[in-house]
């Protein structure tokens, strides 16, 4: 439990009067899935944007693989190996599955400034992309435009894209959102194997999946982490129960 | 350069800026509410000037001419909005640029077809013509003061309209959320037509006011259009305050640049070279201003970030 891959220390962020993150400290250790849960509007997405670099915190630091990355942009963090998938499905709609993943491989290879060679004829690139596509089970759909994929398929494409970056840590923002029961369990299996590749910071509303997968869970309420612990610890935490079930208890 | 001359030039800059504001207000409103880039805004300015010249020629009344300019531009605005513009709201800027570029061609050549190739006559009415003496013994044309007055009145009226009236509330709502106000039962397409006609009428008024001291001719709208775009981009697109500040900034920069730069260059250059170089830099000045503003504030002075 000493191998910390990603950590943030006392992150704060305010939008005017709204305190979106308040002294948040959080870490992600090798081999684990660390789930971040919380009611709507708790500031989960704001937090993950600060970790990915899309937004700068007002105070606090972010460390990744031992580097202080607080001042680095999203692009630079991505190059260090911080792989992110998005809450709102954001693949490139006009690209095929293969192109989408190949783009990520390209980003990982670090040189997109080739003007002449055909991307889809570059053998190593395509092979890597296809491996990732196969891992999420989309090999039959590789020539389909992302916009034409079913919702669950698009989610898996996201994961394939994140895989292609060969990240040292995953940031996954609601990968199960909008999936049917079957899709969700398939995704759960996939994530379960992924954690050995790189640890996962998972934001998810599907509590079944969270409790089945997560090694640790942190609960974010009004921008503050009120509890961190194993599934059992969280289930029995009084403050968490109050936050989630508060109204029922008083009723 | 004396202080009196400087004050006079500041007044000139102010008047130029106020005139630009009349153009820019409509442009920025249409962009803010409907998200539309309207290159044909300058054509509505031209329509106003031609309508005013035609009516003034027929009736001899300047006030009637102004009313005609407002009316004609508003009507032209409504027609264009209903036939063309409303089909463009959901399109990207590229389609809007192309379609309104096409409208410029149609308006310009159509006007030439109706009114011929020669400039029309429109003049200041006798009761507004000639200079008056301001405190400090400054001689200044009354008509230009009237333009400044009308422009400031329109600005005040627009601020009241936006902040105090039901229409204004809807306009502001339309800027932030189209579906929402549609859901609230406001007829959005009527609202859009009204906003567009309002912008058109302001452009027409500007054209008529300016037509009396400039040349009423085909193509008169294009240079003003580009300036109005410079204004709203500097001010921040969609912001009336930005349009006002941007207008005055552009008006003053252009006027003072024209007069001060050649003098400035004259301090270290040979006189006739200073005149030409100064004039050359002065003609580029507002574009330089715009580029500098955008480099430091990529969405303009009052633009949404």
């Amino acid at each position, binding site marked *: 439990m000493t191998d910390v891959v990603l950590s943030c220390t006392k992150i704060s962020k305010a939008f005017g009067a709204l305190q979106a993150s308040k002294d948040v400290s959080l870490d992600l250790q090798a081999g684990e899935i660390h789930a971040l849960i919380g009611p709507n509007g708790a500031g989960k997405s704001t937090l993950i944007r600060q970790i990915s670099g899309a937004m700068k915190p007002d105070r606090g630091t972010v460390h990744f693989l031992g580097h202080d990355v607080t001042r680095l942009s999203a692009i630079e963090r991505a190059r260090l190996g911080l792989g992110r998938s998005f809450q709102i499905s954001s693949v490139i709609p006009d690209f095929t599955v293969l192109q989408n993943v190949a783009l990520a491989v390209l980003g990982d290879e670090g040189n997109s400034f080739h003007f002449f060679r055909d991307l889809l004829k570059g053998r190593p690139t395509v092979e890597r992309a296809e491996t990732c596509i196969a891992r999420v089970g989309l090999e039959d759909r590789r020539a389909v435009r992302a916009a034409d994929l079913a919702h669950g398929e698009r989610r898996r494409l996201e994961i394939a894209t994140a895989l292609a970056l060969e990240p040292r840590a995953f940031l996954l923002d609601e990968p199960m959102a909008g999936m049917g029961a079957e899709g969700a369990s398939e995704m759960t299996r996939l994530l379960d194997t992924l954690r050995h590749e790189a640890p996962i910071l998972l934001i998810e509303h599907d509590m079944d999946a969270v409790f089945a997968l997560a090694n640790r869970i942190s609960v974010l309420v009004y921008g503050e982490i009120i509890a961190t612990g194993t599934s059992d610890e969280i289930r029995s935490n009084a403050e968490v129960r109050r936050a989630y079930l508060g109204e029922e208890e008083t009723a | *350069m*004396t202080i*009196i*001359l400087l004050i*006079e*030039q500041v007044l*000139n*800059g102010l*008047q*130029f800026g106020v005139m630009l504001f009349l153009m820019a207000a409509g442009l920025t409103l249409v962009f803010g509410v409907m998200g539309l880039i309207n290159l044909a805004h300058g054509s509505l300015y031209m329509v106003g000037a031609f309508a005013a010249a035609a009516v003034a020629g027929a009736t001899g009344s300047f006030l009637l001419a102004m009313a005609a300019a407002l009316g004609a531009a508003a009507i032209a605005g409504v027609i264009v909005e209903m036939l063309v513009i409303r089909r463009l709201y959901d399109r990207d800027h590229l389609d809007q640029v192309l379609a309104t570029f096409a409208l410029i061609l149609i308006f*310009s*050549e159509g006007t*030439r077809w109706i009114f*011929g*190739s*020669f*400039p*029309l*006559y429109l*003049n*200041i009415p006798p009761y507004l*013509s*000639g*200079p008056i003496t301001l405190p400090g013994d400054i*001689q200044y*044309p009354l*008509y*230009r003061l009237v333009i400044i007055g009308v422009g400031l009145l329109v600005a005040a009226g627009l601020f009241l309209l936006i902040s105090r009236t039901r229409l204004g509330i809807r306009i502001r709502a339309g800027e932030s959320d189209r579906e929402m106000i549609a859901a609230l039962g406001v007829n959005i397409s009527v609202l859009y037509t009204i906003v567009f006609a309002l912008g058109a009428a302001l452009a027409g008024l500007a054209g008529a006011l*300016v037509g*009396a*001291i*400039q*040349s*009423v*001719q*085909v*193509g*008169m709208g294009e*240079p*003003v259009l580009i300036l109005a775009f410079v204004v709203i981009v500097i001010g921040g697109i969609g912001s009336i305050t930005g349009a006002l500040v941007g207008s005055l900034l552009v008006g003053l920069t252009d*006027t003072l640049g*024209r*007069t001060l730069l*050649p003098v400035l260059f004259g301090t270290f250059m040979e006189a*006739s070279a200073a*005149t*030409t170089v100064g*004039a*050359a830099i*002065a*003609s580029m000045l507002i574009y330089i201003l715009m580029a500098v503003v955008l480099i430091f504030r990529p969405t303009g002075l009052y633009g949404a970030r």
Partner: protein
Amino acid sequence: MNKLGKIALAGVAALWAGTALADGVKVGMITTLSGGGAGLGIDVRDGFLLAVKQSGNSDIEVVVEDDQRKPEIAVQLADKMIQSEKVDVLTGIIWSNLAMAVVPSATAQGKFYLSPNAGPSQLAGEGCHENYFNVAWQNDNLHEGAGAYAKDAGFKNTFILAPNYPAGTDALAGYKRFYEGELAGEVYTKLGQTDYAAEIAQIRASGADSVFFFLPGGMGISFLKQYSDSGIDLPVVGPAFSFDQGILQAVGDAALGIKNTSQWSKDIDNPANNAFVESFQAEYGRLPSLYASQGFDTANLLLSAMGKADIDDADAFRAALKEADFDSVRGDFEFGPNNHPIQDIYVREVIKEGDVLTNKIVGVALEDRGDAYAEKCKM
């Protein structure tokens, strides 16, 4: 031009096309018929075609094209007329920059070019050509006339302004060539500028005793309206361009009484001019302008040469043109060594005839004026 006139014109053109003779002359007219400045091109064309029509000469065929005031288009039209239409003579261009784009290569290909309006200094000096004849003026002429008038009128301290482009700098140079007083100020404005408040304020503050300006087209209209409203009552002098028939009604009473210089005026009393003014009005229903007179003279020069020589004999035809043996509506007219006019420059004053603003001649600024560049021309 009204629609009826246009239909008639198309008919005439069709007629000519049908009767092209083996040794006829084919004329390519490239002029500005659309967009800003179209009025000038239309006048040149109408004046030219009127002369052709009056001559009754069926050996001449005219092809008219619109250059949209764009130099690229003018160049392409010239290519078209030379390559496809196989014209013998080109004419019609209004603007100096378009002339500079077209004329040198046309004359280099052995075509004649007769200029009905533009006379840039390069084409009068080092860039002159034996096949290039200017029937209007060298660009500086009217400004020189204005300078000469200013000297005669005893102006001592003039404020001068023009747009910041070559014709503008040439204009001020031309004025200064004959003017002998001091300059109260010299200002270059932005090309296409419409508001002159800043310049007018400078004029007011400068202590000038007179103003000279060259601001063609809409720029001049704007300047004059704003100047007259400013309450400054210094005398103004300028070239005829801002006081010409097509533009004067738009300037309005602001122009009344202003002296301007021109090589032509509708009240020049000679038979050719009287007939021209009358027949132009009868044909087109408006008073002829300076540009119409230049178009008319250009056609008559060409017709006079056609009567003397065959176009296929270029040397003879050139000599015939050079003789300038036609009745110019402006009175005496001959070509200098560089094929530019030697002519009188008149001073006109803007007056009102009934409701119509027009000009009358009040004096002569320069007599038998050639131009300043002729000695640089080596033909």
